[in-house]
């Protein structure tokens, strides 16, 4: 098979259309085990490093809350990221078509098309989108941008005036698939936050595959998503 044909197949596979498995669709999903999570914030830092995110921008967060009243108080910690909803409100409201949902379920923003109107930021009920404004804002304002930050702006150029968000590390997924790797199993094709989790609280895989790690975890441990009543059908599930 020629290189060109191979590339076409790889491109189809990256978008969820697997020719080899007879056109089976993929929906990338993440399951977060709240019992395993030790609130170390490593996922948040890994995400920042992977995408060279500037100060104040988080694609991964840890929500820390409490329920109950003294002396019966319980601490709740929820690692949070874009839910890559099946019924993504942000995609529907986008007036330019910059926000799209790929066939593999990943919701992305095309910076070349985004006009920065922020309707998606307002519309996302999970508040997982940020307007990226100042590309010269560094972590050490007095010292200017560090060498690492300058390098980051070149390696992962975010466009000022556009909306940015978690993309499930789609560059890693796409590249991994073209190399024949399996996201969620092979580290090179798996999101950075999943790789970095030292207690393996994060699981990544295909929600449409009943035999995948994520599907089995959701079934066995009654996985749930945040606010299913909003009808957004998130792809991020929690188990506890």
């Amino acid at each position, binding site marked *: 098979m020629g290189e060109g044909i191979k590339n076409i197949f790889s491109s189809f596979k990256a978008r969820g259309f697997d020719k080899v498995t007879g056109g089976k669709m993929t929906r990338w999903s993440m399951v977060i085990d709240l019992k395993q999570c030790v609130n170390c914030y490593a996922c948040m830092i890994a995400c920042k490093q992977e995408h060279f995110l500037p100060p104040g921008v988080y694609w991964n967060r840890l*929500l820390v809350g409490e329920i109950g009243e003294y002396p019966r108080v319980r601490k709740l910690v929820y690692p949070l990221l874009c839910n890559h909803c099946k019924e993504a409100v942000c995609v529907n409201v986008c007036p330019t078509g*910059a926000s799209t949902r790929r066939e593999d379920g990943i919701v992305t923003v095309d910076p070349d098309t985004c006009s920065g109107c922020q309707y998606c930021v307002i519309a996302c009920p999970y*508040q997982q989108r940020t307007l990226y404004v100042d590309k010269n804002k560094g972590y050490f304002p007095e010292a200017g941008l560090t060498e690492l930050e300058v390098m980051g702006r070149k390696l992962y150029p975010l466009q000022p005036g556009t909306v940015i968000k978690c993309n499930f590390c789609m560059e890693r997924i796409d590249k991994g698939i073209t190399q024949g790797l399996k996201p969620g199993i092979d580290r090179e094709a798996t999101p950075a936050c999943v790789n970095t989790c030292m207690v393996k609280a994060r699981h990544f895989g295909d929600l449409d595959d009943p035999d995948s790690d994520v599907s089995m975890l959701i079934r066995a441990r009654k996985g749930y998503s945040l606010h299913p009543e909003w009808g957004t059908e998130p792809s991020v599930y929690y188990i506890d």
Partner: protein
Amino acid sequence: MKPYEWMVTYTPQTEWVERRGILIWLSLYAGILGGGSYLVSLYFNNLWGMFISWLIIAVLKSGFHVAHAERPLKLWRMILRPQTSWISRGLLITILLIVFGAIQLAFSYWLPGTAGEIVFKVLTGIMAFGIMIYAGFIMSYVNGIPFWNSALLPALFIVWGILSGLALVMAIGLDTARVDIGAVIAVSLVLLIVAIVLIVLYLWTATYEEPTAKQSVRELTRGYPAVVLGIGVVLCGIVVPLAISLSSYLSGNIPAPLAIVVLACEIIGGMAFTYSVLKVGLYSPLIPA
């Protein structure tokens, strides 16, 4: 808000009401005011009213939007998704109103009474109504903010737009004597009562439909939003215009300075109402209860 409170408790939206977001508030209100004024001016066939309304939309509303845009050169792309996005629909409606309005104004000035004038009056009227209603739908579509997610919001914006339009036409009509002031006052009175009923209904339904919407109503009753609601909406937007309109209705005419006061009050009231609704828009906490 402290970082650890983000989306753990009720989180207010800030993008459309703080810093550059103030421009969105102003553009939304300019659309409501311009659309309402245009419709009323069309009804009373007041050319000055139509021209001022056209300017409000073409210069103020569009100007605020362009000033708010992070990347103004890409604004044209925003007309590409009218099938799903209310912003797209709104931009298309605004552009069509500016174009149809310019043609209609030319017809009304140079060729009044022709078929062309009638056709473009109908088209511009539809667009003016669209501009008023889209501001409400942009907000009511956001189900993440339960206080906005109400069918009453577009209706309230329409009422406020028409009220402001009536006040504008009344102020202009006193000078040109081409408007039936009695009819304007009577309609204003009815709409003011409708506005009171709708506001009460809107707040009342919010308090029992959803905890986050209820919290938004609580926010409206304390601190800075309470001042804006009390002085801006209730006093300026309703009580003063209602008192002046009622006395004018009973006496049969309205002195020019009072008509200007009503116009100023309606504008302040409309701006305050839009601001209040934007300001107390809260997101529900994400952590399950």
